[in-house]
């Protein structure tokens, strides 16, 4: 079965009855909780909705995506003109940061029941993320005690790249896109 992943890509998943009104995917369990039903009778269960929890109004969805993409591109273009360690750059990060924080924290929780596959995947990602964090922390303390050349942190290694205008624009776009995905989930 193909699920619409918010208009970006179709996701192929094997579905089977999960009991208690739910559906099992290969990795998790989508709960068939009732969701709001609008005046046009649109609604049903979570399993009826798209993976991004978006209504199936294609035109509206495309318009929202286009506006968001255009806004992101313009914002990234403006933000990428700010220099490092400047008030302008700090403000440019703070504005979307506060917006995403407010939306993400006020939005009601989404029901996700973790199956064995999802738990295993989460554990693997947690191990890799923790290892990366420890490696970066080790480089940081090495930088403080031994020297930046011998123990460069990731940000030190990437700093020359991020001074390039095009790469800086791409980095801003990527960061803003990640924030957009956070509030769409």
């Amino acid at each position: 079965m193909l699920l619409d992943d918010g208009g970006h890509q179709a996701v192929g998943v094997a579905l089977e009855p999960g009991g208690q009104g739910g559906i099992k995917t290969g990795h998790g369990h989508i709960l068939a909780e009732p969701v709001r039903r609008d005046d046009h009778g649109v609604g049903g269960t979570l399993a009826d909705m798209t993976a991004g929890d978006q209504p199936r109004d294609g035109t509206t969805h495309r318009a929202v995506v286009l506006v968001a993409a255009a806004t992101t591109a313009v914002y990234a273009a403006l933000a990428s003109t700010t220099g490092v360690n400047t008030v302008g750059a700090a403000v440019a990060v703070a504005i979307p940061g506060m917006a995403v924080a407010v939306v993400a924290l006020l939005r009601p929780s989404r029901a996700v029941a973790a199956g064995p596959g999802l738990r295993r995947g989460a554990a693997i990602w947690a191990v890799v993320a923790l290892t990366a964090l420890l490696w970066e922390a080790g480089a940081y303390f090495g930088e403080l005690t031994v020297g930046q050349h011998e123990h460069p942190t990731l940000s030190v290694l990437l700093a020359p790249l991020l001074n390039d205008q095009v790469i800086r624009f791409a980095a801003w776009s990527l960061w803003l896109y990640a924030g957009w995905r956070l509030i769409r989930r």
Partner: protein
Amino acid sequence: MSSRDVTIGGFLVLGVVMAALVAASWAGRLPRFGEVVDLLATRRAGRVLVVLIWWWLGWHFLVRTS
């Protein structure tokens, strides 16, 4: 091999491992990163953590960069 090489090599290995995990998720052998984030964000504390990590990445690499 200098300590600089080891440090950079560690970051490269981690990058390759992350790329492999993403490729495995595309192939359907692992859950997608977004599904893991969804799981983490089910609780408010997890959502705070996810937003903080995202915000810190922006601050660290786009504002400070060193």
